[in-house]
């Protein structure tokens, strides 16, 4: 097992009556890509800010790169790269100026750690004289990542780096993260897109300030406690409504072009379901067994 670079134990954070973070504990190893997966308001940003020494936990302990963000915040700040949820670079400065500024803030320069950021910087280099505010969403995120990496941090904290970014840029961004972990950097990344969970080494599913489960994504999907059935027909909305009315239905949700259907425990009988639906005269009806996704698991745990 590698060195533990991030360790949170029993973290709690309240804002007035709102319990934003409730007894959250997790560990991230060296070179691990760890995902906090959950919707808005799940408490992801508060967790990141506590790790980054920007807010103080109400209770619980944190260690980041071996230091306590509460007492040794200066040591922590030297060793982390942090990308807040909102684009937080200087929009009126050019790409190059932003990189240069953040490099000097950390007492380094682009050339010093060029090897680390090279493949990211090469992508933004053609726009080096463009103002950051005039970049596309994907390019902005690449620039922000570059600035967060410029000082070769031990821990990289990325709060929803792909939110609002188009699918192409999202893919590219994740590929960059994959390459980073090979350099030994621990990456903690959050996302509301469940389909991105599979790209992490381990994930924590979070809802309403609580961690529902921590594990490798494939182990989470394997442990889905039900059989999952995929259905489609020409009239999808009607099919969805009919499935929900089916007496043995546990849940029925749209998933792209399929509906994911789960039977109540012990009532699994696809033949009977098929008969029921054929009786309702659905056209082009298809039923097959499918593999659950992280999103299926999240929904099953959440409800």
């Amino acid at each position: 097992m590698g060195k533990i670079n991030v360790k949170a134990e029993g973290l709690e954070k309240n804002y007035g009556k709102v319990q934003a973070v409730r007894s959250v504990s997790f560990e991230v190893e060296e070179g691990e890509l760890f995902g906090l997966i959950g919707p808005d308001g799940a408490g992801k940003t508060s967790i990141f800010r506590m790790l980054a020494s920007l807010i103080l936990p109400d209770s619980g302990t944190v260690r980041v790169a071996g230091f306590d963000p509460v007492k040794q915040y200066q040591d922590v700040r030297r060793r982390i790269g942090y990308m807040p949820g909102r684009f937080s670079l200087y929009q009126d400065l050019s790409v190059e100026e932003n990189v240069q500024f953040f490099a000097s803030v950390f007492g380094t320069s682009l050339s010093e750690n060029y090897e680390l950021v090279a493949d990211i910087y090469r992508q933004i280099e053609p726009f080096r004289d463009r103002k950051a505010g005039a970049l596309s969403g994907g390019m902005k995120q690449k620039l922000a990542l570059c600035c967060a990496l410029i000082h070769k941090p031990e821990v990289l904290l990325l709060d929803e780096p792909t939110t609002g970014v188009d699918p192409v840029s999202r893919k590219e961004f994740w590929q960059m993260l994959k390459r980073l972990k090979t350099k030994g950097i621990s990456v903690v990344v959050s996302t509301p897109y469940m389909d991105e969970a599979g790209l992490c080494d381990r994930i924590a599913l979070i809802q309403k300030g609580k961690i529902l489960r921590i594990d490798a994504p494939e182990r989470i999907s394997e442990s889905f406690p039900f059989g999952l059935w995929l259905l489609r027909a020409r009239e999808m909305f009607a099919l969805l409504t009919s499935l929900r009315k089916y007496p043995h239905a546990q849940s029925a949700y749209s998933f792209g072009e399929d509906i994911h259907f789960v039977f109540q425990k012990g009532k699994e009988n696809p033949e009977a379901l098929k008969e029921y639906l054929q009786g309702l005269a659905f056209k082009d009806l298809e039923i097959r067994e499918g593999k659950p996704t992280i999103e299926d698991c999240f929904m099953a745990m959440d409800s």
Partner: protein
Amino acid sequence: MKRLLAFIQKEVWHILRDFRTLVVVFGLPVIQVLIFGFAIRNEVENVPVVFCDKSGDAVTQAVISKVLAGGNFVYAGNISREEAAVEVFRRGEAKAAVVFGSDFGKRYHGGESPQVQFLIDASDPNTATTIRNYLTGILKGFLKQKQEEKGLQNPMLMVPEVRMLYNESLSSAKLFVPGILVVILLVVSAMITSLSLTREKEIGTMEVLLASPLRPWTIILGKLAPYLLISFFNACVILALGFVVFNVPVKGSLGLLFAESLLFVLVALALGVFLSTTSRSQQEALMKSLFALLMPSILLSGFLFPIANMPLPLQALSTLMPARWFIVILRAIMLQGTGIEAFWQETLILAAMAVLLVAASIKKFKIRLEE
């Protein structure tokens, strides 16, 4: 040190990019000063004046024609007794009365100081001050010229007796012009630093700066340094305008004037930084600069209302106004031409304020996100 330089460099980039703010920073004070300039200049043209000539000789006639010659005053009639001036003022027929002593001509020829009294409607104190200055100037000029013609060695002393009607205690009003320059400079300077800091909070870059190893003092000095240069330049422009538009002279040392202005601007900028440490948004910072700086500075720094007449608590409060001390310094250098020995105390106070404000800002600067 390298970090500080990098920070300053970044600020310079911001400043050069943000054309609109530059226009506001430099344009607004100029416009304000010009507005005041024109407003005041219009009021001292064609001021109706009445005369009470108890002497009625050639000398008083010469003075009267001299008063009316410049275009600043117009003849509005004669009065027989000085008490009648009140009535004339009340009817709005005149704003000033010139009362000559009964033996004005005789005394003048005899080498004695002739007696003259100015009665001025001081319901508008600023105009009244200007009127007095003009009248005094004209009379002194007249006497000087006559003396030179006569070849007199010792200048004749003539102290005109001035009475301000309706608002007799006008001692501070002559500070109006330097006062308005100072307040504009204070507010504009404080505003640019406080806006620039709160903008970083608003756009979220402060969150990244906080998560970096930057120390509060680096951030604060990094904000102060570039704006010090800008505000100092601004101060020079404003003072130059005061000189050109208002004819405020600079009798004392120009170098000293610059040095003191630099000190005052530093206080103003530090004040802006201090305000921003307690503001979350640019809007909040703006409101604070307007209400916490502009109004008290106008009301309490002594350029509109004499400090000596304020109740004690307000007098105490006025000592906290940087503008109060700088107005004293400015007046001393510009109008009286005195040196540092006359206002070293005020200078020390300003220096102490600058040090305290920077120290307090660094101390109050939040090392974490506000919650």
